[in-house]
């Protein structure tokens, strides 16, 4: 028989404990990119958190100052790489405001439809990634299946799966291809049932609920004070959606609901996104129904590329126009503009100062993920290290956008 020695602690002596500094990241599966959190731990409790960002800093704003306006579109793709059409759209609207033009109605419908597809694609990833961070791997594999369908649609329209560079100032690059509508209708038929599938997988999952409900609560006041926007803010009960409150493009012609939740916890943030996908589906269906015929680019040879590329080979004027735009770009009148859209992550704003040349004097990107990430300072009820993972996952920061 083995003798059991009881470990005893001398009377009055405190348990030997000291605070630990832990590096979470920069390479860690649950930071969704290269984010490094320096955590000061007391046992398993998080005492202090200090996010270190900048590992993906590419100097988008500095680069933009040396690019023409058309050349900047590929840079915007790389901000929130899960939903590039939204970023393209935000930038295009800002430049169009400076120029005082508007894209043709058909182009606006197509842009909105693509932006909503992008929103679904972005929300799908978080629908699967948050449960994965908490140990439920299954959902992620299913959402990838539907994301692939969206990727196919994006590829069909833009020629690229991820970096679409799809909008142009004053319209879009190309019209919708043949066979697009049957394909997107097929997606519209399939997808709502699939959303139901994810819900059935997760909303009665006790582990998932325990790990997210009541965890990482942000009150409405705190969320506004910390500058949160998008679904993160609406999950705290603030009813604000730029699509409805400052309608851009053709959003004022569409009928959709703004989803809000009052709890402000991780589950509410996840839930908001799942419900928003349904609203996005409704918007896409309305876009398909109302899609007008007509041009997809403004008829301004000084701004838009020739619509018919063949003309470049047989018309001198079209050749000059094409060369001029490719080599020198177009000049934008002096002035400054701030224009914001409701990107999947929140308020995506472009502040552009133009000095009248073909390149912006200053371009500032108000990246929603950058601001949303600050919420890690404001959450309550997230004392454990494991809760920090749930909070991070539910805030859904895309590091490429945080670091610009």
């Amino acid at each position, binding site marked *: 028989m083995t003798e059991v020695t009881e470990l005893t602690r001398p009377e009055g002596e405190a348990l030997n404990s000291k605070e630990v*500094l832990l590096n979470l990241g920069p390479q860690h599966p649950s930071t969704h990119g290269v984010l490094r959190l*320096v955590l*000061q731990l007391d046992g398993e409790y998080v005492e*202090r958190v*200090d996010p270190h*960002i*900048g590992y993906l*800093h590419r*100097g988008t*704003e*500095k*680069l933009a100052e*040396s690019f023409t306006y058309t050349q900047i579109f590929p840079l915007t793709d790389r901000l929130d790489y899960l939903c590039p059409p939204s970023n393209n759209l935000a930038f295009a609207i800002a430049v169009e*405001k*400076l120029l005082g033009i508007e894209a043709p109605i058909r182009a606006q419908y197509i842009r909105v439809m693509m932006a909503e597809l992008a929103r679904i694609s972005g929300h799908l990833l978080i629908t699967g990634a948050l449960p994965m961070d908490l140990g439920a791997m299954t959902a992620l594999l299913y959402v990838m299946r539907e994301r692939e369908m969206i990727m196919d649609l994006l590829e069909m329209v833009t020629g690229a799966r991820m970096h679409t560079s799809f909008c142009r100032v004053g319209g879009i690059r190309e019209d919708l291809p043949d066979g697009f509508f049957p394909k997107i209708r097929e997606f519209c038929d399939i997808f709502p049932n699939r959303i139901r599938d994810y819900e059935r997988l997760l909303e009665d999952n006790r582990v998932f609920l325990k790990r997210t409900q009541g965890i990482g609560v942000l009150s409405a006041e705190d969320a*506004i*004070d*910390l*500058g949160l926007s998008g679904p993160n803010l609406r999950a705290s009960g*603030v009813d*604000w959606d730029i699509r409805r*409150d*400052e*309608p*851009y493009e053709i959003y*004022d012609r569409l009928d959709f609901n703004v989803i809000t939740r009052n709890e402000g916890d991780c589950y509410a943030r996840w839930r908001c996104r799942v419900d928003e996908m349904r609203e996005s589906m409704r918007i896409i269906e309305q876009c398909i129904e109302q899609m007008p015929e007509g041009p997809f680019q403004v008829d301004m040879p000084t701004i838009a590329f020739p619509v018919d590329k063949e003309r470049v080979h047989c018309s001198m004027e079209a050749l000059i126009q094409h060369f001029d735009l490719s080599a020198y770009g177009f000049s934008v009148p002096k*002035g*400054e*503009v*701030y*224009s*914001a859209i409701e990107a999947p992550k929140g*308020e995506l*704003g472009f*502040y552009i*100062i133009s000095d009248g040349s073909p390149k912006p004097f*200053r371009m*500032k990107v*108000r990246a929603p993920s*950058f*601001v949303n990430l*600050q919420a890690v*300072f*404001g959450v309550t009820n997230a004392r454990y290290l494991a809760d920090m993972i749930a909070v991070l996952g539910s805030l859904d920061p895309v590091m490429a956008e945080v*670091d*610009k």
Partner: protein
Amino acid sequence: MSVEPFLNRALILERFGETIEDLGTAHGIDVFVVPPEKIVEFCRFLKDQPEFRFNFLSDICGVDHYPGTPRFEAVYHLYSLPNRCRVRIKCRLGDPPEVPSVTGVWRTANWHEREAWDMYGIRFTGHPDLRRIYMWEGFEGFPQRKDFPLKGYKDKLNPFGAEGPPPTQPDLATRDIP
């Protein structure tokens, strides 16, 4: 579609009078120029005044007008959630640029100001934790200034950078954690 100009200018001008400059409306947003020493008071006024309630700080950014003077600018974009309207505030700053921090008014200003410090070297006095945010600690110079070369300065890690010594600016805000 642009937002309707909403601001009651008379109320602002009555309170601040000569000290602020009204630049009118540009693309749907009202613009005011405020001297740096008044910025905190002005922001707090816009936030607390029941008629405005600009409770949401969208963005703070730095601008470099090199070689023009005054060289720097700090630009604030505010949004009013109750009234659904926006306003832009500008602070013109000399060299070296310095402006009081508005972190006491909105907590979200924290990272925006760190970014402006990192990229333009605008010192926000009274900021609780003014460190570099994107560039690494010990980096010299402020990369988004107009006189900073696009490819950076040449050193052993950056063989394609521009010739010339990097500017030696004392980085007073290097403070490691904890």
